[in-house]
């Protein structure tokens, strides 16, 4: 297992490198010059501008600049936000926890819904329960998160007045009250993201369980006289989860996309809304860093999925 983990980690590194190359290519190809402001400023003589360019290495060949950028990214020197006037890494560290909590909670919710519903639907295929669940899941993943978000606000905040629709980071209450306020304002974003994921995962779980239920070893388990409950929980589900883990890992980029939208709707101060703000205000260092953090997160969760895969199917880790 240790060997397998090491191999997976080593395989993740080139992907991260590849992503950094793509990101830097986008930045290098992008029109516009960080010195535009200086160029139009009459108080800065042209020779000062040229000297500054040379000093900052803007005239170096692309691959030298890539090397500089990568080494400073690795050293943790992520630059300085043009707008907020603080270091980018401090800014991201302030925003990241909220995003992680919201995404994590919504994934747990999605699993709690998708697993039982998908398994129950597959155990009795084409029953009423299956039909209703499958139709609902189709509706669920055809509703874009930005529309469900608006519907939730309309129904639960405006009509019923149950939850606040603006997320506040600066809640003054302490103790239990503080926890309660935070949970209350997180319910809607977590539900929007989680139910959307649950809808598509439920279909994966269902079709995967359907594939496994027909296999011979399941019939063997049944004919040994094991109860249906044991057959499903111990024999079917674990094997059915293997393809589900792959599909879930493939969806990771989409999950982060959904998080950006949800953060924007509910005005959650996470890194998704930080990215949107930075784009709207031309804050290039923040844009690059946040995109890089998102890439890192995607790769990290793919790694987790690979490890989970090895745990679910030990044969894989010995290959």
């Amino acid at each position: 297992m240790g060997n397998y983990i090491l191999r997976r980690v080593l395989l993740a590194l080139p992907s991260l490198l590849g992503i950094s190359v793509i990101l830097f290519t986008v930045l290098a190809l992008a029109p516009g010059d960080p010195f535009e402001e200086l160029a139009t400023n009459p108080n800065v003589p042209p020779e000062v501008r040229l000297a500054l360019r040379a000093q900052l290495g803007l005239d170096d060949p692309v691959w030298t600049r890539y090397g500089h950028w990568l080494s400073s990214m690795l050293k943790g020197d992520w630059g300085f936000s043009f707008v907020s006037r603080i270091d980018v890494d401090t800014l991201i560290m302030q925003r990241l926890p909220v995003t992680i909590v919201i995404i994590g909670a919504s994934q747990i919710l999605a699993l709690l819904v998708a697993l039982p519903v998908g398994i129950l639907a597959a155990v009795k295929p084409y029953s009423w329960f299956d039909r209703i669940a499958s139709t609902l899941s189709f509706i669920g993943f055809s509703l874009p998160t930005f529309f469900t978000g608006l519907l939730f606000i309309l129904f639960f905040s405006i009509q019923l007045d149950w939850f606040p629709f603006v997320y506040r980071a600066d809640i003054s209450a302490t103790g239990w009250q503080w926890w309660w306020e935070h949970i209350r304002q997180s319910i809607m974003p977590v539900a929007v993201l989680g139910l959307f994921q649950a809808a598509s995962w439920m279909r994966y779980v269902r079709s995967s369980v359907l594939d496994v239920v027909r296999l011979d070893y399941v019939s063997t388990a049944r004919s040994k006289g094991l109860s249906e409950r044991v057959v499903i929980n111990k024999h079917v589900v674990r094997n059915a989860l293997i393809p589900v883990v792959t599909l879930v890992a493939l969806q990771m980029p989409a999950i982060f996309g959904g998080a950006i939208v949800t953060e924007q709707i509910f005005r959650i101060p996470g890194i998704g809304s930080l990215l949107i703000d930075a784009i709207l205000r031309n804050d290039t260092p923040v844009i690059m860093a946040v995109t890089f953090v998102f890439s890192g997160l995607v790769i990290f969760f793919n790694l987790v999925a690979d490890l989970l895969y090895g745990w679910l199917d030990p044969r894989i880790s010995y290959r």
Partner: protein
Amino acid sequence: MAGSTPASATADGAAALGKARSSVSPWGEAWRRFKRHRLAYWSLWVLGALMLAVLFGPLVYKVGINDIDFQARLAGPSLKHPLGTDDLGRDLLARVLYGGRISLAVGFAAMLVAIVVGVTIGAIAGISRGWIDTALMWVTDLFLSLPQLPLLLVLIFFFRDPLKSVFGPEAGIFLLIVVVIGGFRWMPVARLVRAQFFSLREKEFVEAARALGASTQRQVVRHILPNSLGPVIVAATIDVAAAIIAESTLSFLGLGFPPDIPTWGRILFDAKDYLDIAMHWSMFPGLAIFVTVLTINFIGDGLRDALDPRRVM
């Protein structure tokens, strides 16, 4: 079974293909299976109606998308404005119909980009073993682990202005959005096509073609590619829905089409601050996206049943 099924197939769909009663063409057979998926069949009608409305609606319903009427600001649905108006008193039906054209056009065009790139890469990887295959699959996996929405936003942010100045505001943004969305959706298609190629190129009929001296190009174009299209068509259908959602998401974040072009996502973006006083404003474009995406997804599901008989239980 054998006696009754072909008869119904010829009566419904295959008759149009001019086939004899006894033989049912593969497409007729697929159509018969497709019709058995009730939801998919009805979705085809709903989506067809929606597309007709979007294409020909503006020709019949002659209200300008930018006609400002301050007398009727934020008015609810009425006879004069069937879907109500927005904060400047512009007619929502006209805007939703016009926006539908753009949203659907983006969906189909981005799907085409994704399919062309995906089929090309998948076919090259599938027919050439060795390092080309390995390299192409590494690139595919790399693209699959890119965070798509952040990169979409970044690309549009960087390249919006130069493209606008070259192609004009509408065409430039359209081109950019289509290429970028399509450029992030080809990977599943490439994997599908590659897997199909791997199994098909060992089949007897391809071997026969090879024995008869068919060049690699002819084997691919005449024999392998047409037989691997079933799953590609299904993927293409789902891609249209995904591209429509992607475009709406961009517009909803305020980074898609410029404000004067009312795509569905853009109308929602403008409407979201008026949820409490003008519910209709956000409901209708939202419903339009939802119905389009839902029907396309159902059609994709029906096509999967129809074109991939092995999967049907």
